């Protein structure tokens, strides 16, 4: 069973993301929520994480800083990160790509868009 951490300061956004992920093949996953990047890091350290889905604009630790800390961590580096954001200028997006983000989606998202992103993160051979 895959463990997915969802980070967004909006409870509605977290719920919406979870629904999309469940619809697009992760219905059996264990979802763990975080309201900011700091909480997301704590959740990721509690147990092996298969996927992080995160917003960019969050209080305390934002999505970009979260990504930097993940890449810098020997333990967390390698966890695929999908960024789902309403913002994100080109400078931020470029840095995210250089850090190795698995995908960047713009809000509002929908199940087909999420499905396509997941297919790149979890190839058919590996399955969801």
């Amino acid at each position: 069973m895959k463990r997915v951490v969802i980070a967004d300061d909006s409870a509605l956004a977290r719920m919406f993301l979870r629904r999309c992920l469940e619809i697009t093949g992760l219905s059996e996953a264990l979802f763990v929520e975080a309201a900011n990047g700091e909480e997301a890091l704590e959740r990721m350290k509690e147990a092996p994480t298969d996927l992080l889905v995160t917003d960019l604009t969050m209080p305390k630790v934002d999505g970009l800083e979260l990504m930097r800390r993940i890449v810098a961590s020997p333990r967390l580096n390698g966890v695929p990160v999908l960024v789902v954001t309403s913002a994100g200028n080109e400078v931020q997006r470029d840095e995210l790509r250089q850090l190795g983000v698995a995908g960047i989606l713009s809000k509002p998202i929908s199940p087909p868009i999420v499905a396509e992103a997941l297919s790149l993160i979890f190839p058919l051979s590996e399955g969801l």
Partner: protein
Amino acid sequence: MLEEPYLLEQLYNALRETIETMAFAEVMLDEGTALGESGGSDLVWGRVAIKADLLQGAELVVPVELIESLTDTMYAGDERQAQEVYLDTVAELTNTLTGKFMLNLGGKAGSFMLAVPDKGCGLPDISGRHLVCHCMVDETHPIRVVLFLE
């Protein structure tokens, strides 16, 4: 040069796509409906500051009744949500439509960043240079989006 009719068109498009995608509700332009005739006690708002050339922020004002209905639809549950959840909804809708609006501009406003959204109850005053887009949701609920300009 960002002309006002173009900005209003993109603002409307962003609002429509946001609410239709997230809450499956129809959004139409409306030019004459007065929001807040009851004094604003039945309204909630979300506001997002924009760090960009020529643009300062966006604000969404919606009737409480509408935000409760949209929230209940999005949560797909039968239970009433707490007020904080409804305020979170208007904040997230504002956040999403503002980001969509900026992306719709296709870089014409230059590089941008959005702040964490703010939210509250009532009908905010409007000051400074701004554009206003009045809409109707599901032919029933008047809403207003304000774009604050530099």
